[in-house]
């Protein structure tokens, strides 16, 4: 038995440590630990409910917009105005959220993942006239290679030409993700941490010049998605095609859906959305979403045992550092008692299973290119492909919303803060299913709970001993070179972990229990 410890795992959001026990080069057991605690939910207690969307965005500066959406849906429901949001308010929220997801997914593929597949140092041998590549060559010749070296070495497979192109795209993607945030800010005010989304609708009013400014940034991004992002994902998939078999995960997917098509239906599990709510497993049969089936377990988390799973609205957080058998501060959310993965793959697969023709066409076109069955979607590369196709789907849908905006008409409705109320907000964040729950007493926040995508994906074992999705995806993986464990970081990063989200409430990280030896 040997152990691989990666602390910190980088190029993710936040602070993560991974321990993998290997035998004969194969991972037998994997454990993930968040290494930061802040406690935003505790900070929210006693505050003005309207401020929630401002605080929760500070859970995560990479995906704040998704938190602002979940919070405002949550507050809309608590304030009794979920079905009263003006058309402009709904559309602007969709556009702001869509812009966030586009920028976020470009950032994820290029700036968080690409360096696992692309060797920037190969540009040293470049002989040509491309100014970007020549500037990188000059950078390499200066001899200080931070932040690109040190790194894992040995498994960079792209041809020199493909590699150079990918490096140029890595740089271009910096500009494109920035443009995505500019686009967002046209209606969102600023990024990170937009200020326009709020209960009742939004604060920004659409005008023709803003619509046009948004549209032409969107057109530029769509061009990048179609002609660079998706082809690059496919190019990586061809060179690293074994990753269609690596990092499979638990085989169950859960989506809350996103992008409201209307707001008549108050029940967010049934609201008409572009991306659908529901569950699928490897058979790709659609299951109906029932939030009463969500429960969080703590047998292997450092909290006092409460016997069985608890629904998040009745969640309890009673820290017990050093509890026997526990190894994480993250709770284990389960759906119908089973382990579920969330993320772009989940929402695309659920929407695929619902029969939506545009999603079927997108996914089937990639599957036919690789002459592969849908089962390959459950993999490291499947997650990257689904994320890129999702980005295209959203970007291609956004022009319709822009044209439906009505300058001069209201963007939000008035409301009263109730003395007492409860609420629930569900939306698919960039990284997957995001749920917020609120309890209001005396017009103040009495309790606020978030169950976030990275809690689903990075959770520990539950009361039944079932490992979490990332733990399952790592287990059984063969590591070619234990000093350069590419396989581990490639699998982890395909989930796009967001630790600031996963540990938003997680109480302090416990002491090293001394159970493991560093190898």
């Amino acid at each position: 038995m040997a152990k691989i410890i990666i602390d910190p795992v980088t190029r993710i959001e936040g602070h993560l440590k991974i321990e993998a026990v290997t035998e004969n080069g194969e991972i037998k057991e994997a454990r993930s630990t968040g290494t930061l605690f802040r406690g935003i939910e505790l900070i929210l207690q006693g505050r003005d409910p309207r401020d929630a969307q401002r605080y929760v965005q500070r859970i995560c500066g990479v995906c704040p917009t998704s938190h602002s959406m979940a919070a405002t849906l949550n507050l809309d429901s608590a304030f009794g105005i979920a079905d009263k949001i003006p058309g402009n308010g709904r559309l602007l929220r969709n556009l702001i959220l869509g812009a966030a997801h586009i920028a976020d997914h470009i950032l994820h593929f290029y700036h968080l993942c690409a360096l696992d597949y692309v060797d920037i140092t190969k540009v040293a041998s470049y002989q040509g006239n491309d100014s970007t590549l020549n500037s990188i060559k000059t950078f390499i010749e200066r001899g200080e290679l931070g932040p690109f070296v040190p790194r894992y070495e040995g498994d960079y497979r792209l041809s020199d030409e493909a590699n150079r192109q990918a490096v140029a795209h890595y740089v271009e993607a910096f500009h494109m993700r920035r443009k995505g945030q500019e686009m967002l800010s046209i209606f969102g005010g600023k990024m990170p941490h937009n200020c326009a989304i709020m209960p009742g609708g939004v604060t920004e009013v659409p005008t023709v010049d803003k619509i046009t400014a948004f549209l032409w940034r969107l057109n530029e991004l769509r061009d990048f998605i179609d002609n660079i992002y998706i082809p690059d994902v496919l190019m990586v998939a061809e060179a690293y095609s074994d990753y269609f078999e690596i990092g499979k995960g638990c085989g169950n997917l859960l989506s809350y859906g996103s992008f409201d098509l209307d707001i008549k239906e108050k029940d967010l599990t049934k609201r008409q959305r572009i991306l659908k709510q529901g569950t699928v497993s490897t058979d790709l049969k659609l299951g109906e979403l029932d939030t009463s089936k969500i429960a969080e377990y703590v047998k292997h988390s450092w909290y006092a045992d409460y016997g069985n799973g608890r629904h998040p609205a009745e969640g309890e957080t009673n820290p017990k550092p050093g509890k026997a058998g526990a190894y994480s501060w993250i709770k284990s959310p389960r759906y119908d008692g089973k382990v579920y993965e969330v993320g772009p793959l989940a929402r695309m697969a659920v929407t695929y299973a619902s029969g939506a023709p545009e999603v079927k066409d997108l996914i089937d076109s990639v599957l036919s290119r690789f002459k592969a069955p849908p089962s390959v979607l459950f993999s490291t590369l499947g997650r990257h492909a689904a994320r890129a196709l999702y980005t295209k789907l959203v970007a291609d849908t956004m022009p319709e919303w822009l044209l439906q905006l009505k300058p001069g008409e209201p963007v939000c409705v008035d409301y009263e803060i109730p003395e007492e109320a409860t609420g629930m907000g569900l939306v698919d964040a960039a990284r997957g299913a995001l749920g917020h729950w609120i309890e209001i007493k005396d017009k103040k926040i009495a309790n606020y709970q978030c169950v976030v995508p990275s809690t689903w994906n990075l959770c520990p074992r539950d009361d039944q001993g079932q490992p979490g999705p990332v733990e399952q995806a790592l287990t059984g993986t063969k590591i070619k070179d234990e000093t350069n464990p590419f396989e581990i970081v490639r699998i982890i990063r395909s989930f796009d972990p967001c630790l600031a989200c996963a540990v938003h409430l997680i109480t302090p990280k416990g002491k090293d229990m001394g159970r493991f030896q560093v190898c």
Partner: protein
Amino acid sequence: MANAKNSEIPVVWLQCATCTGCSVSVLNSVSPTIKNVLIDEVIPGKHVNLRFHATVMAGAGNIVIEELKETARRKKGNYILVVEGAIPTKGNAADYGSIGEDDGREISMLDRVASLASDALAVVALGTCAAFGGIAAGEPNPAGCIGVGELFRRNNISTPLINIPGCPPHPDWFVGTLARVLLLGLPKPDELDEHKRPRAFYGQLIHENCPRRAYFEEGKFAKKFGDPGCLNELGCKGPVTYADCPLRLWNGGVNWCIGSGSPCIGCVEPGFPDLLAPFYEKLTEDALPNIGSSREEV
């Protein structure tokens, strides 16, 4: 060919109790772009050498921690330490936040910042959390978070400190401060205000330069969101907040908070968030300073 005259400024960027929003904001820099900052001579003949940044760097695990320690040894007294996020101090600080391991032992954010800050040329506390505690230190401050200045006071660290608050800070505030150091060296003491913020960026009240100021003077106040008018009655904290947002604008100049009809929440101020909340309630009269007076008079 390598330029013999080229000089570098090594940068070590530590993320503590943060949401990573400050890093994302700096990625939004327009001129120079983040590529210019990371790859090119950001000032002719001078370039940034980013040695450690957990969200950007290629490596992971022990090799990057060794690189961090090696940089501190090799570049002692010459590197700029950027701290993003507050520093947890509660209990055994490593329980609440650690960055990597030394010899199999997790090292707290507190210890990492303290040891790297002592040997730095200067420390930039980037964002309101790093400068003053910020959101992470909001009541009841569950992790006992503090800003870098408070850490310096407690540990008698005297390395020059520059605070660039904001939740998040504007990329120009950071890049402009970096350029100041590259061009002319560290800022002189009178270039910073009493909260160690560069006056160039934090010298005037939002309210002084607000395009909605005329509404305020005429007593035209927005009563609900989406209305024209001064946002004072919807809770705007522009009258007590020092930053150049109304002149600089955000995200390539496309918009800013008040521009989108949303009140300023005072995110650059030392009292953020507790003294600025509730965000959508009108400032009380006693909180209103003399509009337009200098910060010392306020």
